[in-house]
């Protein structure tokens, strides 16, 4: 017997209109950085692709800034009490951009065929899925092998984008010619991509929600130099600077301009969490005392203020304060160089040099590494900054050739989706920089991670994760640096740009321009 678990939302929360009446028409210029490698969201899911393709492709659900699921392509959904059956009722009259109907078969194809092959992150969640069945053209049923708490969070556009079956079935997905002209169900259609310059999307007149989108067209502008991007915003060439597209130092200057607004919202679903992998396998970093010393040696508040210009939060542990099941009942590593020196003396640190590998994502990250080096040098640790470009960074981290390496990862709303992958021993896999790269092994804790993922009751899960956090923070498998906050800067006449947990990625759907 099925039981109505979640409330059915009949009206999209986004449509809860503010006082002013929305005005249709207009064009939005949004910076995209770097240029995406491709727009086929089922094949590529890096940040820039998500940003652009989030307007073209859609998922079954949308998540608000509190990470609660909202109707997307699915009008309503039910979860059985045992947490094993998820049934989605699809929106009626949805059409692909080429005019074909969107049906339950497309959902089955996307989840069970296409994404199982191409989407590594989703694949981990799909491992829990027993079957995906189209009950009728507008109803889909996911059956799980065992309960998987975070399963309701995997229906976001970039996590489980809907792929048109009629285009991809039976083809080689990676080389399908249609990848260049993506077909989705989203509010905007792909029009043109001038490489190195811009991507042009136009309004989907057939969009299944009447009146949406308001905008006529969206330009995603490729401007490779951060300073130029700032200039582009200042001169009015672009209207929106998504988080991270200008350096933090520029943010106050730009937001102080007249008619410019900014918001820190729209990143809740990702909750980007930055840390340094400390190589648990060898060298000084394999010693827990050393790792703790590193934590005490760093003035993370200072770094946040200076390097990140005050944006973000200093984290207490592996789970972001924005993610579900966060707890701050853990050991706090406040700046304490003396304590760091004591710990170093206790372990008998002999001055063996350690290398820091910064993340090659621009000046901020470089400065951050320099600040860390300075802090560590001050407590007597010999530090050298290693350098590598994006490819080199990937190589070094995935081949474990580092002592300390900066990184940040999205948490996708749930520790089981975005956090545990970095700490459990089964995810120690050479060759990928997206798992337990630090080589932390704690079998006892692994059990707790696994158990917490398959619990059904949120209260149980909360308790389990609190325990995990308390324990792991003492071990310092990695040095948690910052809960990143990427303010989105935009002109104030652009309204309703950030209304969901993924922010600008699907922002143009609801956005409108006040004339």
């Amino acid at each position, binding site marked *: 017997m099925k039981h109505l678990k979640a409330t059915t939302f009949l009206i999209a929360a986004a449509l809860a209109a503010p006082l002013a009446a929305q005005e249709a028409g207009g064009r939005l210029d949004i910076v995209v950085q770097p240029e995406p490698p491709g727009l086929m969201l089922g094949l590529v899911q890096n940040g820039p692709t998500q940003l652009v393709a989030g307007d073209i492709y859609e998922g079954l659900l949308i998540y608000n800034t509190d990470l609660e699921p909202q109707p997307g392509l699915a009008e309503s959904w039910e979860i059985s009490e045992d947490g094993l059956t998820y049934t989605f009722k699809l929106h009626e009259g949805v059409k692909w951009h080429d005019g074909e109907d969107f049906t339950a078969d497309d959902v089955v194809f996307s989840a069970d065929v296409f994404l199982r092959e191409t989407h590594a992150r989703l694949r981990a969640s799909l491992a829990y899925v027993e079957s995906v069945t189209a009950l009728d053209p507008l109803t889909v049923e996911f059956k799980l092998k065992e309960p998987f708490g975070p399963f309701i969070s995997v229906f976001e556009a970039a996590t489980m984008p809907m792929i048109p079956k009629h285009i991809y079935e039976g083809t080689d997905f990676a080389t399908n010619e249609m990848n260049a002209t993506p077909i989705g169900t989203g509010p905007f259609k792909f029009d043109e991509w001038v490489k190195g310059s811009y991507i042009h999307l136009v309004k989907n007149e057939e969009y299944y929600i009447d009146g949406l989108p308001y905008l006529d067209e969206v330009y995603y502008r490729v401007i490779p130099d951060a300073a130029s991007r*700032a200039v582009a915003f200042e001169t009015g060439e672009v209207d929106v600077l998504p988080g991270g597209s200008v*350096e933090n130092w520029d943010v106050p200057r730009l937001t102080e301009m007249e008619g410019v607004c900014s918001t820190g919202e729209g990143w809740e679903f990702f909750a980007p969490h930055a840390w340094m992998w400390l190589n648990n396998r060898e060298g000084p970093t394999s010693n827990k005392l050393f790792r703790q010393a590193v934590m005490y040696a760093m003035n993370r508040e200072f770094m946040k203020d200076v390097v990140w210009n005050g944006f973000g939060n200093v984290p207490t542990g592996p789970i972001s304060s924005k993610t579900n099941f966060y707890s701050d009942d853990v050991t706090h590593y406040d700046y304490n160089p003396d304590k760091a020196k004591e710990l170093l003396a206790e372990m008998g640190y002999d001055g063996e040099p350690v290398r820091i590998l910064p993340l090659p994502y621009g*000046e901020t990250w470089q400065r951050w590494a320099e600040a860390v080096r300075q802090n560590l040098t001050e407590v007597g640790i010999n530090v050298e900054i290693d350098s590598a470009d994006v490819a080199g960074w990937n190589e070094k981290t995935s081949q474990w050739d580092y002592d300390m390496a900066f990184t940040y990862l999205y948490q996708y709303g749930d520790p089981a989706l975005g956090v545990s992958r970095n700490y459990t021993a089964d995810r120690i896999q050479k060759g990928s920089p997206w798992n337990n790269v630090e080589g932390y092994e704690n079998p006892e804790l692994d059990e707790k991670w696994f158990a917490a993922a398959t619990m059904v009751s949120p209260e149980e899960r909360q308790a389990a994760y609190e325990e995990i956090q308390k324990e792991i923070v003492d071990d310092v498998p990695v040095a948690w640096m910052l809960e990143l906050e990427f303010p989105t800067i935009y002109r104030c006449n652009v309204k309703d740009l950030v209304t969901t947990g993924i922010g600008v990625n699907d922002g143009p759907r609801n956005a409108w321009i006040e004339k």
Partner: protein
Amino acid sequence: MSMWKRFSSNIGAMVGVLLLLTVIFIAIFAPLLFSHDPWQMVQRPFLAPFTMQALPLGTDTLGRDVAAQLAYGARVSLLVGLVSTLVALLIGVPLGALAGFYGGYVDEGAMRFTEFFQTIPNFALAIVLVAIFEPTLASITLAIAIVSWPPVARLVRAEVMSVRKREFVDAATLAGLSKPRILVRQVLPNTVSPIIVMASLMVATAILLESSLSFLGLGDPNAMSWGYMIGAARTVIRSSWWLSFFPGIAIVITVLALNLIGEGLNDALNPHLSRKGKA
């Protein structure tokens, strides 16, 4: 007139020497001039210049002393410039000398090799080399040397070919001297002047190249250089102009000084170079 007299009567060249000596002085005595190292965060970030006496040029994005960074940056820039030029000379001079002196197949082979390197886009090659070997002072220096030796080889070859035709080389041959000895003792010393001139200009170009690489993020993260400073500051150029302005000026001054010296040397060492080259 002696070479020194000619050189010292050249106002431009003397200005160049003065500027360069100043830069060298600052580079050498940087640790004495500044009590803190250039990476140390000493004050609040973005301190404007001329506001604090202790920090005359202000502070950078992390609150580090810009003046100290400039002084230490001089070391790196000069070092990279000098060493890469030396390495380029070490490749180019022997190659050009052998090609010019022995002619024939040696020449053909050496020149094909040189042409080959001239055909590869220079700056792009430098970028790829640095990216491949990862940015360290050594790899940057090497990459700059690798892209800048071909003109040396060509110059030395042309010079050697012209000197080789002079009669004192015949005289040395008739004296029974061996070919390598003639090349080293008789011919090469007579090609030194244009090489010195070219070298002084190459140091300047190398400094520019290093700074360009740094600007693209391909600098040694452990070495404070002027290019690093500009690269690091370009995103804040609007709010904190001095962070990219001062290192920019430092580069201009140093490169200018080297060019002035190079021209002075050229005029002093080769007063008749132009006439000789035409015949």
